[in-house]
């Protein structure tokens, strides 16, 4: 059976990629009604943080076969 850490990593990686893509999209085309603190582009860097964590979990859970 695949380790739970594998699934956690996969999910964080995929969701992080989508959040980063959303951040990049808003950087290129700023929304008409920006949220508070939008100038810090939280989607962009938080998405990247998620992808890094996701990658680490995916790597850590790649071989285990227990729960």
């Amino acid at each position, binding site marked *: 059976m695949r380790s739970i850490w594998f699934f*956690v990593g996969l*999910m964080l990686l995929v969701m992080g990629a989508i959040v980063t893509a959303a951040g990049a999209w808003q950087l290129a085309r700023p929304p008409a009604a920006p949220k508070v603190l939008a100038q810090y582009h939280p*989607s962009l860097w938080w998405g990247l943080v998620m992808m890094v964590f996701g990658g680490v979990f995916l790597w850590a859970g790649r071989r285990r076969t227990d729960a």
Partner: protein
Amino acid sequence: MQQAIGLTVFDWLVIAIYFAFVIGLGIYLKRYTRSEEDFFLAGRRNSSWVAGLAFLSANLGALELLGMTGNTFKYGMYVAHFYWIGAIPAMVFLGIYMMPFYYSSRIKSIPGYLKLRFDEKTRVLNGIAFGVMTILVSGINLYAMALVLHTFLGWNWDASMWASAVTVAAYVTLSGLMSAIFTEIIQFFLIWFGLFLVSILGIVEIGGVDEVLRRVPPAFAALWSTSADPAANGMMITWAGIVLGLGFVLSFGYWTTDFLVVQRAFSARDLRAARMTPILASFFKMALPFLVIITGLVAIVLSRDAGSGFQLLVDKGQVNYDSALPLLIARYYPAGLMGLGVTALLAGFMAGQAGNISAFNTVWTYDIYHSVLNRGASPRHLLWMGRVSTVAGILLSIVTAYWAKSFPSIMDYMQAIFSWVNAPLFATMLLGMFVWWITPNGAFWGLVTGMSSSVLLYLGVKFQWFDAARITLSHPYSDMAANFWRAWWAWLICFGVTIAVSLFTARKPREELAGLVKGLSAGAAEAPVPWQRRPEFWGVVALVLLVALNVYFW
């Protein structure tokens, strides 16, 4: 109701991936769910990290997040007591002292221990009380879920409840406790990644943690220094109420006897892993106020600043405290992150509900159905019954959700339920595990009077038969203060009646209690490990950290 928030394609994609993930996991894990032990105890093969995160996450539902952030808005920093004195000592006590009795006796549920230590009637009484409680809490989870969808997306309450309940029913029915544990761990990470950014952005907007604490009213900004006078703190309670009601009775009652959380430790692969489960979880529990309490304090500061444009929702003249967290997500999160925030809450709700339902199906199947209704049931039939009771439990929680909707603050209600069931049970467990001459009749009648007194005290205050100050021993008081004190009195009554009845009724022979009572066990079979891997060492580290946090925020 506020205007519904529009979601972008990025947000919908994140939400859709989460739903696909949990359903996919349920289908993937079904092939490993062959026996009743796989379904009800996840095959007893988890590491302490997996069991520990699930142990914590079973308690970390949307209910907890919305309710505790709302409670921080209502009561101030005193809500951090739920995470520190109201959790850590009990979790360490469970790992060091109680888990050896639970795990070594190979029981499948907490009522199962009551059967071995006392008798069948005590087991069935607790099984029924626990079953009712899990359905009630599961119903509140549904309500919390509907609030999120209603607030964010403008969805219909009824449709929201039914859609989410069907998803949970699907994956718990497929693979039982294992899928519940997997989704709980995924939920743990989603909550941190999906919601911690709210606190960070709130602190950035206000200008630092010190500035947040400076702008919160003094009664809301301390942990202990205002606890001598109930009028001086937001929760309107004294230190005695916190220590006795929350720190001792409610906390120990919940963390050491509530099968919802303890079931996760039962899934551990060996005794050391089971003992480490709550102790590992305690470190993550201590960190949660930095997510929940800070978010609540940020909401207080913003709502007091007319220029911020931030106000909680008001429904029919009543402030909806539980709207604090969703409104902050709406304030800060742009496209993509919005989907992540909504997903974190959805995950919190669904895992919270799955946790309750997976505990309910176990107690129903073993402690009510197999124990009373069908003693000769085969393991295959019990596995089938586990799946049937999952669906039935979900349907019952939908009914409960409509009832829960009428309460102003979710957590007050949940504390009321816990003090009905868990508070007296902790007295029974404590006496049962540490005093050999406590009798089956003593335990049974202690539980009956303890639970009845708690319900009567609740009804007495609710319908104004007497003033709550008679329970809290101080004035003024809050609903929360009355909950804490009611738990204390229920515990004390159960404790006293159990001892009194035990003095006059037949005891179980000592030899029948070996392994179930302290001092009568032959010693748990635990392989020797270096000191830095011992649960006792990490338990002491957790307690030292707890003291440091309390002193720092005194």
